[in-house]
Every structure is written in structure tokens, then in C-alpha cells.
């Protein structure tokens, strides 16, 4: 069954990753990825599929997370008794309840009004969380211990890798359910309302109700992600429901590609990797993230996934191979040009001291280094410009249809 192949691959990837990379750092990163994937997918339910731009999605993530930590505390003190494997569900339910409440008045309109309400609610909740110290723990947040629950088939979750496998299960299930949602009448009408709320009303659907359903589902899965966060870190702070977290999920979903189901997964993986790996190499990784985000919005409006999908036509026509060489001819200088810009930024940043950049040692006090860098940058820029025309024509040729009367979707 070809239909299930991507899902089997996804499951294998989720379960196989810790076998390939089993260092402590790798497991930490995989856990972060798991959380990010669910969170970004839930955000895409809103923005990508429902057309609702939210600046406060962390509210549902954070509230779910806080309640999940409190649930862990309750398990520890034996107020309640259930397996911690169900903690994400606690987060999800809290996310759902919060979304039902907020959605009841915020889904009336999409567009700017919705975006502003989400911003206002986000700021309100974040500010309130610092006021209500007994629940949110103030600046320090609240923490718990996940190992007190009843063992799950003998597993007590002392190790991060055990939590990873638990998370992987939740991630897989959440992904499947969120995908299935897109295939239901409610999910499809969410697309329709995004495209044209007026027409949707004239074919029998209340645009508000359709948005409300998407909003609540999205809140639920954001809460699940919050629950996974609580399980993994065993603590949560105000930062997890404020604008920073809301912004980060927007970045992930957008960079990955809003229009595609797989987009946010790509975005979550890429951003998590940048977050954990790049930050080891440079203090400036946030600056690079900002640059990458702005460039993506400018030049890849449909994100990384959109960029990949651009090649669908050429692939279907069996002409993808004709693009490889032009891509290399333009791509290598382009990468070198980007690299020299990065090197220049790093040299400015390191002002005076020498440092390792990729395979060379650079010193901003050395004029020769600056000269070499400028030459490489200029030469690669020139080569890039020169070969761009070739790439464009190769691209057009690869996408040209055999039958000139029939124009495929561009």
C-alpha cells in the first residue's frame, strides 16, 4: 500500500533515530524535536489550514504544560494515581479547555482582528502568570519529578531515552490524527473558509463555527506538546507561554512551509537543529535565524516544503536530473558567497581575536584575511550572477510541458 509508505517511514525514522545517534546530546535534541513537531503542526492547523494568524499560540502550549507539571506533582503526592504516559493528554485537555474559552469570542473574524486578539490574550496570560505565583511559580516556574508514577510495563522513566520513546509514540499518534483531521469535512471546510469565508457561508457553513473547531483542535494538540515538554524537562516557566514561544512556533511553521502538511515538521526539525547545534558554534545563531526567517519570507513564501514541492512538475516529467548540474553550478558559488558573508559577520563579531571558521582560522585584525574574504565573496557573487541565467532557462525547460496547449499548475 503506497498510501501508508510515508507513515511507515515516519514511524521508522522516529523509532530509529536514537539507534543511530545515542549520545546524550542527540537524545536531548530528539526530545526537543518531538515537542516542536507536535507544537508546529498544531500551529499549522490554525495558520496554514485555517488562515488564522496567531501571535499567542504559546498560551495553549504553556497552560497545558503547567497543568501537566501540576499533574506530575499530584502523582508524586498521590493525590491522583495514573501512569505518566497519559500526562500529554492532561496537557491536551487543558489546551482544549483554554481554546474553547478563547475561541468562543476570538474566531468571529480571521485576519487582523484575530491576530490582534491572539496577541492581546497572549500578553494577558503571560503577564497574569507572573501575578498568580501559587500556580505559575513566578519567574522560577514550577517543577516536578516524573519518576513517581506507577511503572509503565516496568519502565519508570528515569532516562531521557525512555521519555523519547514515549514522546515518539505521542508524536506519531498526534501527527496521524492531525493529518486525518485535514481529510475530514471539518478540516476541508477549514481550508474553504480560509480561502473564502463568504462563499463558505452560502454553502451552508458558519465560518465562525468552522474556525472554532480548528481553533479548539489546534489548542488541544498545542496542549499535548506542552504536556510532552513537562514530561521531558520536568519543569516549566513563564517563558513557555509568552510571546517568545509564540514567535518561535510561528517561525517554525513558516520556515517549514505553511501550505503543506509536512512543512511544520521540516521547520521543527530544522529550527531545533539550529537551536541546539548552531548555538554550540556561534553566539550569533539567533541573528542567523532572523536572517534566515526574513529571507524565507521574502524568497520562499511557501517555505522549505514549498521549495521541495516546486520540483514536483519536473520530477513527474522525469526531468529532475537535468537540473542537477545547473543547481551545482549556481549553488556552489551561492553557498560560498553566503559563507563569506557569514565569515565577515563573525570577523566583525570577534573583533581582534582569531577564531576557527569552518576549516580556516580567521583573524579580523589581519588585513590579508579581509582581502581574501572580500575576493572570495566578490568572485562567488560574480559566478553566481553569471550562471543564474542558465539555471533559469534549465528550470523553464524542465517544467515545460510537452503539450503546449495544456498548461499545468505553476
Amino acid at each position, binding site marked *: 500500500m503506497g498510501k501508508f509508505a510515508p507513515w511507515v517511514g515516519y514511524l521508522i525514522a522516529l523509532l530509529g533515530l536514537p539507534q543511530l545517534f545515542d549520545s546524550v546530546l542527540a537524545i536531548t535534541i530528539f526530545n526537543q524535536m518531538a515537542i516542536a513537531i507536535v507544537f508546529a503542526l498544531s500551529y499549522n492547523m490554525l495558520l496554514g489550514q485555517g488562515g488564522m494568524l496567531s501571535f499567542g499560540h504559546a498560551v495553549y502550549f504553556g497552560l497545558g504544560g503547567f497543568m501537566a507539571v501540576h499533574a506530575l506533582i499530584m502523582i508524586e503526592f498521590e493525590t491522583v494515581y495514573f501512569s505518566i504516559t497519559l500526562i500529554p493528554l492532561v496537557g491536551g485537555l487543558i489546551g482544549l479547555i483554554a481554546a474553547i474559552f478563547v475561541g468562543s469570542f476570538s474566531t468571529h473574524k480571521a485576519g*487582523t482582528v484575530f491576530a490582534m486578539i491572539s496577541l492581546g490574550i497572549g500578553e494577558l496570560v503571560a503577564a497574569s502568570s507572573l501575578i498568580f505565583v501559587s500556580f505559575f511559580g513566578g519567574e522560577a516556574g514550577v517543577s516536578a519529578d516524573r519518576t513517581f508514577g506507577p511503572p509503565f510495563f516496568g519502565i519508570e522513566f528515569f532516562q531521557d531515552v525512555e521519555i523519547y520513546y514515549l514522546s515518539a509514540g505521542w508524536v506519531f499518534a498526534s501527527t496521524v490524527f492531525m493529518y486525518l483531521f485535514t481529510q475530514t469535512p471539518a478540516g476541508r471546510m477549514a481550508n474553504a473558509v480560509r480561502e473564502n469565508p463568504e462563499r463558505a457561508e452560502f454553502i451552508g457553513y458558519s465560518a465562525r463555527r468552522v474556525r472554532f473547531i480548528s481553533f479548539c483542535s489546534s489548542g488541544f494538540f498545542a496542549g499535548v506538546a506542552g504536556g510532552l515538554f513537562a514530561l521531558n524537562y520536568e519543569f516549566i516557566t513563564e517563558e513557555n507561554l509568552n510571546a517568545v514561544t509564540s514567535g518561535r512556533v510561528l517561525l517554525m511553521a513558516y520556515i517549514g512551509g505553511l501550505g503543506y502538511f509536512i512543512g511544520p515538521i521540516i521547520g521543527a526539525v530544522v529550527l531545533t537543529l539550529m537551536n541546539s547545534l548552531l548555538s554550540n558554534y556561534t553566539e550569533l545563531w539567533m541573528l542567523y535565524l532572523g536572517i534566515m526567517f526574513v529571507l524565507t519570507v521574502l524568497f520562499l513564501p511557501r517555505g522549505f516544503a514549498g521549495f521541495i514541492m516546486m520540483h514536483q512538475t519536473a520530477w513527474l516529467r522525469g526531468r529532475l536530473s537535468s537540473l542537477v548540474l545547473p543547481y551545482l553550478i549556481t549553488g556552489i558559488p551561492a553557498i560560498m558567497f553566503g559563507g563569506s558573508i557569514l565569515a565577515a559577520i563573525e570577523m566583525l563579531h570577534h573583533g581582534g581575536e582569531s577564531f576557527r571558521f569552518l576549516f580556516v582560522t580567521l583573524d579580523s585584525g589581519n588585513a590579508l584575511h579581509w582581502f581574501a574574504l572580500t575576493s572570495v565573496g566578490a568572485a562567488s557573487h560574480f559566478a553566481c550572477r553569471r550562471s543564474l541565467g542558465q539555471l533559469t532557462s534549465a528550470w523553464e525547460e524542465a517544467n515545460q510541458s510537452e503539450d503546449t496547449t495544456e498548461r499545468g499548475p505553476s
Partner: protein
Amino acid sequence: MLEVFVFSTLNGLVTGLLLFMLASGLTLIFSMMGVLNFAHASFYMLGAYFAYSVSLKLGFWAGLFFAPLLVGTLGALVERYALRRVHAYGHVAELVFTFGLAFLIEEAVQFFWGADTKNYRSPDLLDFPLFVLFGQEFSAYRGFMITISVGIFLVLFYVLTRSRIGIIIQAAITHPHTVANLGHNVPLIFMAVFGVGTALAGVAGVIAGPVLTTFPGMAVVLGSIVFVIVVIGGLGSLGGAFVASLMIGLLQSYAIASNLGMPDLLNLLGLDFSRDHPLNDLWTLTLPQIAPVLPFLLLVLVLIFRPTGLAGKREE
């Protein structure tokens, strides 16, 4: 009590007028181009940083002159080479772009100037108390801030109501499509409005920097508040933005100055709760504590009950 009131009013006025300088530019940009510029407060921050750098070499007054010019030019370039491109992808993309720009500017500021607070100071010339009331000093610099803000408001008002370009802009606020059809909506006006709007934010940054401290987080502190003002005032209404700016400025100032809180209310009602009550945080709330929340509460309420804002005519 009276002295608290007077000083709160004066401080609220200063904040409100400052907020208006940001809100006016944001409103102009929104009216013309239909885009809420998330990065607006970032241009304000750039104004402060540029002015700081200039002031190190040439003094405060040179900074007041050059920094807004720099910021405005940068704004115009952003409009010309980025926003115009994103415009084709639709409203969401525009909003997301300005959001990304705000993020990028904050990081860039840290890259060029560092993460620490800059010692950007008001000029010595204005370093004296303008007057002393109830034993408290009101600094000349604050008076200067009020003067500049009011001056800009008057100039803006004059330009918008008396000049030809102002009338075109005004027309664009209420009838954007008609103006476009008349052939006025040339990209140059867009660029100019964006440039002027960001330059205004720059001015606000220059004069606010010394008082509200110049640090990489200063855009975030004001950013969402300005949004709140523009929405509460009614998207696209300058008058509404003016009223809302003063309202928010005064509201916050009064809330911070007052010592009132839930305990007073409970005393008044003759109620008493034990300290161990789980909702203790709620019973001990004070106005200064919730002061930062008030604008957002107002924002949400306005959006729910009157999405066009106080004076807005146009939705979306």
C-alpha cells in the same frame, strides 16, 4: 494625594505623547498600505541607538537631527526592496514579514551595539529642573519631550489637513481604492509614507532613549503597547490614536502610582480571607501589579465588542 495625581498626570502625558509619536506613524502606514507594521517599535529602537552613536561624536542635538533621517531612509528602503515584494503574497505574509523584521532588528542591534544598556544621556543643556512642585522636581528634559511631541503632532496635523499630499493621504485613509484609481497611489507615496512613519518612530526613540533606557529590549517593551493603541483608537484613525495614546499613558501612570488593590476593596466590603487560601494571589492583587496588563485587557475587550476601535470606520 494631589501631588501624586499631578505628577502621575504629567508622567502619563509624557508617556502618552511619546506613544502617540509611534502610533501616528503606525496609523499612517496602516491607513495607506493596510499593513500593521510589527517592526515599528524596532525602528523606534534604532532611532535611540543611532542617536546614541551620533551623540558620542557630535552630541545630542546632532543625534536628534541625523538619527530620524537614518531611520526614515532605512524604513523607505525596507518598503522599497522587501515589503513591496512580500505584498504580492498577501496580508498574512506582510504581517509575518514585519514580525520577522522586528526579530532581525533586535538581533542586529545586539550584534552591532551589544546586549548591555547604553549610557545614552539627555543633553546637559536640559539637565535642570523645569519647576518644583510639592517638593518634587519636574525635569526640563521631560518638558522638552512634551514640547517635541506636541510640535510633531501640530506639524503632522497641519500637513495632513492643509497640504496637497496630506489630503491625498487623508483620502487614502477612508477611500483607498478611489485614490488608487485616481492614479495617486504611486509607489513613491507608499515609500514616502513608510519612510516618514518610521522616521517619526525614530524621533520618538531619540528622545525616549535617555529616559526609558537604551537597551535591546526597548522595542519589545513598547511594541505591543503601540499595537494596542492603534487598535483601540481604531485602525486608520489618527484622532483615535491620539486619544488612545493619552488614555493608555495616563491609565498606566495612574495605576502604577496608586496603591489601591484587592485588600482595600475587601476591607471596604468587610471581607477577610486567610493567607493560605489557594486564591491568595487574587486577594492580594494591587493596581500597580496589574498595570502592565490593563492595555491588553482593554485591547481584547475592544476587539470583542467594537472591532473597529473607538474611532475607526474601516475594518481590515
